[in-house]
């Protein structure tokens, strides 16, 4: 054990002491009418000291801890899957089974779970969209939420001012978000890596601040409320039809009114959208354009020397990624019924990026898993109240340490060649 280890340990313990003191050790509380600073209880102090001791010891014995980590068997997902040949024949059945389960499942569980599942599906869509830009084309985009906002506000505004329906607005939202992606794409074409990240970060903020300040159109920080819900071929899911002469869903099918129909209907739309998005992106990845995105990520100069137009390829990645976010945004506005710029802050971009990185860049399966974990975990950890974000952060640190390549790393397609 050398002195640098000891120094590290003391340093880390010191940092954790300062952080713990600030976050847990002191509290502002109201003492009748004035604010008073209160210290933590003796029990809390014991926990803090215990935590610092853990940090100190784990730093001091970091080599041993590392060895312990290595001793933990890593899950070998490849081994869990059936053999390649068998898997190929099973695959369509497996996919069909999953879709059927996803369709039946909401009728058996509580309204809250269905709602949460819908939110998860939105994040899956967003993750898949960002995966095109970050995972495949290798362009780090920190302002992805801007396209999500464009999609959401497109539907909200069209619905409010022109009374347009969800289904008509869905392609318009995607199209408009794609246009914004295209417009952002132009100035950033020459940028890579860090520079690109800063520009996209700025773009995300521009959109949010614009929405916040253009009060006459967007309602500013008050947002837009009363956005129409999607209808099933014109049938509404409200207790009473809003328009004269229109039918509601329960009237048409002569059932009792239940508010859960609406939630389940929204969920089913989300499932449908996600399946469409997965299929489309899956095809794109195996098409020449998908290969070109990856080639561009690997070596831009080689791409140019082989006759690939990098401008067109980068723009297509930006545009298609943005349109997926536009889709998700339009659905989000319809589900929520109320949107404000608060929903499109930077932390959303960061979460979507975390989904892509945790899942494994470029891997669709991984992103689906990661989106499920990232949305459900904060809900499960609700009982930890204010410390749940702390837990969330801890999980991400552990994940990146344990499986830096992501949950399910991307698998290269195996292309069969005829032996000549």
């Amino acid at each position, binding site marked *: 054990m050398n002195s640098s280890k000891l120094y590290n340990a003391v340093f880390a313990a010191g940092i954790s002491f300062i952080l713990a003191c600030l976050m847990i050790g002191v509290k502002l509380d109201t003492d009748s009418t004035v604010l008073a600073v209160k210290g933590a209880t003796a029990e809390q102090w014991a926990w803090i000291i215990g935590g610092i001791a853990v940090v100190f010891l784990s730093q001091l014995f970091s080599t041993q801890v590392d060895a312990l980590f290595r001793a933990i068997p890593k899950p070998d997902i490849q081994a869990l899957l059936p053999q390649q040949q068998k898997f190929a024949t099973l695959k369509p059945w497996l996919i069909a089974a999953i879709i059927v389960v996803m369709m039946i499942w909401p009728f058996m569980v509580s309204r809250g779970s269905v709602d949460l599942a819908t939110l998860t599906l939105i994040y899956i869509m967003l993750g898949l969209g960002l995966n095109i830009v970050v995972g495949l084309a290798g362009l780090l985009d920190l302002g992805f939420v801007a396209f999500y906002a464009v999609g959401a506000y497109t539907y909200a505004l069209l619905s409010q001012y022109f009374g347009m329906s969800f289904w008509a607005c869905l392609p318009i939202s995607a199209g408009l978000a794609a246009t914004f992606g295209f417009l952002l794409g132009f100035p950033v074409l020459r940028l890579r890596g860090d520079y690109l990240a800063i520009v996209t970060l700025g773009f995300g903020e521009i959109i949010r601040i614009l929405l916040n300040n253009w009060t006459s159109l967007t309602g500013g920080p008050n947002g837009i409320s009363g956005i129409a819900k999607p209808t099933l071929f014109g049938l509404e899911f409200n207790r009473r039809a809003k328009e004269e002469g229109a039918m509601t869903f329960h009237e048409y099918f002569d059932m009792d009114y239940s508010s859960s129909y609406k939630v389940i209907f929204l969920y089913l739309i989300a499932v449908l959208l996600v399946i469409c998005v997965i299929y*489309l992106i899956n*095809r*794109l990845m195996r*098409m*020449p*354009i998908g*290969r*070109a995105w*990856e*080639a561009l990520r*690997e*070596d831009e*100069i*080689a*791409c*140019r*020397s*082989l*006759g*690939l*137009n*990098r401008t067109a390829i980068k723009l297509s990645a930006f545009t298609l990624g943005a349109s997926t976010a536009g889709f998700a945004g339009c659905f989000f506005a319809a589900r929520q019924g109320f949107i404000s710029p608060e929903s499109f802050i930077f932390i959303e971009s960061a979460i979507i990026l975390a989904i892509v990185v945790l899942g494994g860049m470029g891997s669709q399966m991984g992103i689906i898993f990661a989106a499920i974990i990232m949305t459900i975990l904060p809900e499960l950890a609700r009982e930890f109240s204010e410390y749940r974000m702390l837990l969330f952060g801890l999980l991400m640190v552990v994940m990146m340490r344990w499986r830096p390549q992501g949950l399910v790393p991307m698998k*290269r*397609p*195996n*292309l069969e*060649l*005829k*032996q*000549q």
Partner: protein
Amino acid sequence: MSQLLLDVNGLTMRFGGLVAVNGVNLKVKNRQIVSVIGPNGAGKTTVFNCLSGFYIPTEGSVMLKNEQIAGLKDYQISRKGLVRTFQHVRLFQKMTVIENMLVAQHRHLNTNLFSGLLKTPNYRRLEKDAMEHAAHWLKEVGLLEYANREAGNLAYGQQRRLEIARCMVTQPELLMLDEPAAGLNPNETKELDELIIKLRDEHEISILLIEHDMSLVMGISDHIYVIAQGTPLANGTAEQIKGNPDVIKAYLGEE
């Protein structure tokens, strides 16, 4: 008399005050192997960068099949049939060998988005042709068995060969090789030698070569250009170059 494929006249490239290439002339005929040699830093790679459109030359004309290509974008030039390799191998490392070959055929494959999304028969046929074309070239360079291996995991010599095969699937008329023998062992150099001759004789393309390995250059070149400090020094057949006192001086220095 065979036809003139590439005709470069008075090619000059300045970076600010620095003249990297000064009035270089090059002529490549059909089915010819032409080499450019010169000491380190002579501007050989800069010439390549100018020809392939990575730099826009300050002065001079570059005619490919009697068509001016100086000033065109890099990808436009490669689509006209002039493709290059790099001094340091530039493969798509994380992609498989066969994917590398398919990316190179992007422009032949890239019909439209919808035919690919819907897997139309036309799209399937194009994909199949591209796969066969790729397989053909992998076999030519002896990499067919590694088709599904990640390109970054190949041995260095194999990576060099893959880079050449990847250029060849774009169906070029002039292939520019930038130090293809760098880092190869004598055996691999010999194989490369045979491959280059095969490309000329069987596939009827022209090759423009930058190389430091003199035995390779002298053995296969139909014509050699010598550049020193950005300026043309001499040109001629291997025999003429070997005996040229200026060339010897540039390489070995004066007494």
